[in-house]
């Protein structure tokens, strides 16, 4: 065994008074933490295997369990913190690149929490959304800035293809492979019920899900898995993935161990071979190349579908967005660095990219300055956690937002951040059939619908408070935001005044 440098992060606390030895914890833990000791007629636990996913805690019928972060730690050191030391031990053990999942847990500023929303008082009265119509429907796509007439002088009303969203929220890309069949089905069913969209990610579209095509965004990424004309035409829009907030600048990699029969079929690659998405698209080295791919996809779908270009929020994002807005793309999706992932190198996830709030504000500002804001719609994602974040994003200039982590939480994810292990006890980030079945899409989709419906009510309520009755009137309305505890530079980038001003 040698020396064990890594100690359990969590301790399983079982209240012996309450435990009825029903063994549900044992049956439900794919990490094999719990077991039954017949001799003592007691449940026992192996703390070293616990990832703190709470499956056992949630299902324990007598609430006899809790998982506690160990208070055992290294000698206090503000510089060499425990997790830093542990990472070094891990790498010294393995020689491997640290792999992590979900969004970064590091303590970076969350600008959403440093912005406050306005409300009407006395003048410009607020609106009661229970009594008066409140519009949250929005359309994504190129908006013509000119009125055009035909040779007879009649108005040409035909617009570029648009995505119509009942609520300005969409489920962002998660591939079948990174998440399970049932997680995908839950998203698809919910998108259909809500009149919004979910996104295939780069995993192809399972044959069972073609029926949800009207509420599907199909993705084309550097690996082009499962991409063919039928796929491109199945969705309501096509997204070219250039980058992802959690891992800007690098590609994706679904290990061969996760490529079972069904995923192999959907991605159209052999079973058990790695699915590697290269870091760049090897046919895109310039905005001109990007334009070429945008138009290839438009040609492939006879100009019937809007094309989304998704990029990670990085340092010069406004210049990049400006290029994309000129590439013929209809929608730009920007993914902030706090966004989630099924697996990413930890160093990249935790250190590369910029917060979505700053990226969004600077992109919206830049596109307006250049007079090309109407060329594209802006969709932002990367840790949108509540309806308040949605309101703030729209006020900063977004047309709609993408959520993924919030959606997974609705499905039961407990953010244990071990997706890469493939042993998701909630049936989400796993391909093991006995775990996948834990997520009944009927339950999952209902929870998603509940979440988004609740957010929509809250959005309407806050809009009403601002005296705004249409989401379109909130977009880019930065007067509705004030900063709190932000410095001059931050306020300037966000384009908002400080609270009290």
């Amino acid at each position, binding site marked *: 065994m040698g020396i064990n440098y890594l100690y359990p992060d969590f301790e399983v606390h079982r209240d012996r008074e309450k435990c*009825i*030895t029903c063994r549900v914890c044992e049956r439900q833990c794919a990490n094999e933490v719990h077991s039954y000791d017949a001799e003592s007629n007691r449940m026992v636990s192996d703390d070293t295997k616990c990832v703190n996913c709470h499956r056992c805690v949630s299902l324990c019928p*007598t609430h006899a369990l809790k998982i506690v972060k160990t208070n055992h730690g290294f000698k206090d050191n503000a510089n060499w913190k425990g997790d830093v030391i542990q990472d070094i031990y891990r790498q010294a053990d393995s020689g491997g690149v640290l792999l992590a999942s979900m969004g970064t847990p590091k303590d970076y500023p969350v600008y959403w929490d440093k912005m406050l929303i306005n409300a009407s008082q006395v003048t410009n009265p607020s609106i009661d959304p229970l009594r008066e119509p409140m519009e949250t429907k929005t359309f994504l796509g190129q908006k013509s800035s000119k009125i055009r007439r035909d040779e007879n002088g009649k108005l040409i009303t035909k617009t570029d293809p648009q995505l119509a969203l009942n609520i300005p929220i969409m489920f962002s890309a998660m591939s079948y492979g990174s998440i399970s069949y049932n997680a995908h089905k839950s998203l698809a069913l919910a998108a259909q019920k809500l009149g919004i969209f979910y996104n295939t990610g780069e995993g192809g579209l399972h044959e069972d899900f073609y029926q949800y095509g009207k509420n599907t965004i199909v993705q084309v990424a550097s690996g082009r898995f499962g991409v063919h004309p039928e796929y491109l035409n199945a969705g309501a829009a096509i997204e070219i993935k250039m980058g992802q907030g959690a891992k800007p600048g690098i590609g994706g990699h679904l290990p061969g161990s996760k490529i079972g029969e069904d995923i192999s079929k959907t991605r159209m690659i052999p079973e058990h071979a790695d699915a590697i998405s290269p870091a760049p698209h090897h046919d895109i080295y310039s905005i001109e190349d990007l334009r070429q791919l945008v138009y290839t996809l438009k040609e492939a779908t006879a100009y019937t579908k809007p094309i989304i270009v998704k990029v990670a929020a990085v340092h010069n994002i406004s210049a990049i967005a400006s290029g994309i807005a000129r590439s013929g793309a209809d929608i730009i999706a920007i993914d902030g660095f706090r966004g989630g992932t099924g697996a990413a190198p930890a160093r990249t996830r935790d250190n590369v990219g910029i917060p979505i709030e700053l990226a969004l504000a600077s992109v919206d500002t830049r596109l307006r300055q250049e007079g090309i804001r109407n060329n594209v719609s802006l969709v932002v994602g990367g840790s949108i956690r509540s309806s308040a974040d949605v309101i703030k994003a729209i006020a900063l200039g977004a047309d709609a937002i993408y959520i993924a982590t919030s959606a997974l939480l609705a499905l039961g994810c407990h953010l244990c951040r071990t997706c890469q292990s493939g042993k998701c006890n909630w049936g989400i980030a796993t391909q093991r059939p006995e775990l996948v079945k834990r997520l*009944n899409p009927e339950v999952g989709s209902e929870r998603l619908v509940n979440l988004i419906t609740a957010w929509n009510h809250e959005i309407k309520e806050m809009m009403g408070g601002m005296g705004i009755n249409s989401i379109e009137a909130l977009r880019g309305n930065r007067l509705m935001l004030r900063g709190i505890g932000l410095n001059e530079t931050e306020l300037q980038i966000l384009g908002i005044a400080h609270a009290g001003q």
Partner: protein
Amino acid sequence: MKRVYVNEQWCLGCHLCEYYCAYANSGQESMVKALKDRTINPRIKVEEKNGISFAVNCRHCNEPLCVKSCIAGALSQVDGLIVVDASKCVGCYSCIMACPYGALMPNEEGVMQKCELCTTNTHGKPACVQGCPNKAIVFEER
């Protein structure tokens, strides 16, 4: 009539239905008090093998063979619900012989007990349904 329906596709084999059943029919207010250090004898049982699992309890048949076979008149069909009068049951097990689902089982005293959809305890709605974490057991009118 509303009945319990079981869908093996969503059954996780967690056995919680059995524990909620045993608790519901224990007459105790606390699950811990009801079940701690006891071998439970629920009215719903999970079958599991090779990764497949599903719960089985009384189907409340329209033509109940158990009722027709009961020598004591202890089983009867009341508004569709098959109930057992424990005081009349003599433990002959004719119902075990008759039930094609194997849904009846004796209690610790050898008297028959069966799922009565929690209509005869304080839970009101089937506890197995309420306790199922994945809607593998539903209570529906069909």
